[in-house]
């Protein structure tokens, strides 16, 4: 285990500490160790770009995680009905997750672009008043982002929850059948609590994906229209590589890390206590 520990401490924790140290300086293009402590964090909190991107992320995150969990659960239940061609469906549902968003995001962008995508095509068929321009509407573009992210992420949730469903004891089903309980009741009141740790795992994975959301935004909307789909990760990348603002970018990165910790820690403990309860 020693090499593993060296990697964990040296690479992961070391990089984290370094990021934090740099966020305490006024480094611009290259690291310069002149400390001004929490100045960058104060600047970050007063930066409209950052505040807008955090607000966007909250909307995106809540919708994305909720829809993914519901949709993934429904798909998993569907797959659990011993349907024909299950492995084919599984592959199809999981396929988006295996694809890079840089590639598919670009295709999505073209499909949704009103001047040559769906809108233009349908209008070409003679429906002149057809409008589907969410991607260029500042008040709707965030939903396009959710749509594309759900398309990618729900397959993963399905796979995780399906594994959970397969672990449910067959006898349970027989017992509920004898008692004459409706199937949907069994799923919501009996099965769901049993696979709750699985759902918690899926939620953590989705939350991390939300905080990290970058490639999707860059490929799909470029943060636009205006700043309607700007996200913290993009803010960090921009300040790191384009605006020569390394310290501010690292302060943003630390804030993102804090967000992940705040979201993941309660889920982690809830999961552990659930596991203990199940075991005891």
């Amino acid at each position, binding site marked *: 285990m020693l090499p593993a520990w060296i990697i964990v401490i040296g690479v992961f924790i070391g990089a984290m500490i370094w990021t934090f140290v740099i966020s305490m300086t006024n480094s*611009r*293009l*290259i*690291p*310069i*160790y002149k400390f001004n402590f929490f100045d960058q964090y104060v600047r970050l909190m007063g930066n409209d*770009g950052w505040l807008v991107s955090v607000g966007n992320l909250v909307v995106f995150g809540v919708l994305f995680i909720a829809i993914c969990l519901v949709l993934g659960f429904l798909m998993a239940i569907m797959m659990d009905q011993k349907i024909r061609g299950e492995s084919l469906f599984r592959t199809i549902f999981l396929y988006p997750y295996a694809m890079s968003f840089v590639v598919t995001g670009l295709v999505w*962008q073209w499909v949704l*672009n*009103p*001047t*040559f995508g769906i809108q233009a095509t349908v209008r070409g068929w003679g429906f002149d008043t057809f409008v589907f*321009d969410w*991607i*260029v509407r*500042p008040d709707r*573009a965030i939903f396009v982002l959710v749509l594309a992210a759900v398309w990618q992420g729900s397959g993963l949730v399905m796979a995780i929850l399906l594994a959970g469903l397969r672990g449910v004891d067959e006898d349970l089903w027989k017992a509920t059948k004898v008692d004459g309980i409706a199937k949907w009741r069994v799923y919501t009141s009996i099965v769901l609590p049993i696979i709750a740790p699985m759902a918690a795992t899926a939620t953590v994975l989705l939350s991390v994906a939300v905080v990290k959301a970058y490639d999707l935004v860059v490929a*799909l*909307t*470029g*943060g*636009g*229209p*205006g*700043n*309607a789909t700007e996200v913290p990760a993009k803010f960090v990348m*921009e*300040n790191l*590589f*384009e*605006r*020569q*603002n390394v310290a501010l970018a690292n302060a943003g990165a630390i804030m993102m890390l804090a967000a992940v910790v705040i979201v993941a820690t309660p889920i982690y403990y809830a999961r552990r206590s659930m596991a203990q309860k199940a075991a005891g």
Partner: protein
Amino acid sequence: MNRIQRALSGVAAVAICAAMSGTANAQPTEVIHWWTSKAESAGIKVIADAFNQGGGEWKDEAVAGSSAAKTAAINRIVGGNAPDVAQFSMGADINNLVESGLLANLDAVAAAGNWSKIVPASVMSAISRDGHVYAVPVQLQATNFLFASKAALDKVGATMPKTWDEFFATGDKLRAAGIVPYAQAGDRDVWFMNTFGAVLASVGGAEGWKQFTGPKGAEYVRSDAFKPVAEILAKLPKYADSGVSGRQWNVTNQMILKGEAGFFIMGGWAIGEIVASGKKPGEDVLCSIGPNNAPAVVNGDVWAMPAKGGNLTEAQKKIAELTTSVEVQTKFTTAMGSLPIRSGVDASGYNACAAAGASAIEKGNSVSALMIPFSPEKVGAIGAEMKVLWAKADAKPEDYVKALAGVLEKY
């Protein structure tokens, strides 16, 4: 930190020397740059060939994408394993490297090559810090070309506009004919900044530009002189189509090539794309610098030469001399479709659009693009504000004034 870094790089240098002893003379010259497209590779090959013919050994380290290439170069410079030459954008890009004493002083090469006479003054100031030269100018680009589709203009019986009023009048006709009057690229903030620069240069002229970039920029933005600029900025989005957001510049350029759109504001790099599509600049695609022969808004690229043991190495000196020579500049800029950084370059090989840019610079009718006097942070903030206002359907001229004055005061 500096001392630690020097100590570290010293150790690294000793280690490398120890490893290389015996073959010390055969060290290749590493050049990091981001010129990877077809025309660009042809351009960089001109310099590489000239260097190799002079007995050097050019080691090409192309990294796709400017920010990735800059990051690669910075990481290696800071890490003590600096390349011999690295490409950067002209202007504030190199400030931090110069301040930290990481770049070699090029005063001797500049004096020997008589740069102060042959290189435009604005370029000289962009590569100098405190009176010392720290970068080799490689090429210039005019960023404010107004391109127009000849086919689209013919359809409505219009010619290239000479004023913004004519521009908008032609725009109305184009729209009536079912053509998008104005195409705007929208995937990056910088395209909105670029369009803003074009409008400012054409309305405010060199004088307005000087005031905007000067210490009293915010005052100028709030003055009456700036009003027409803000009015055009507020009017322009209404002449564009709805597909701007997220659209790459080359896709937008296609709209002009296909005659789907009338006008397009973009830098000289679009000319290469026009030629590559088999269209002729100046005939199929018309071009002018702003609608009213505005000053060319010029940016460019430079070689930064990381300091190696205090002095400029022979190889670095050689590349600096070659890059700024008439011969290499002529061949290089013709291949790249860009503009030379010095006088005396034969422009006969240039296409009509590039020639227009070259003559504007030659006549002194040019200003330095915003990324030269402004920090990347400030330029980025301007682009972000312009992008937000573009997407706001009811944005008024006053909103532009407020946003721009805000950025100038804050950064």
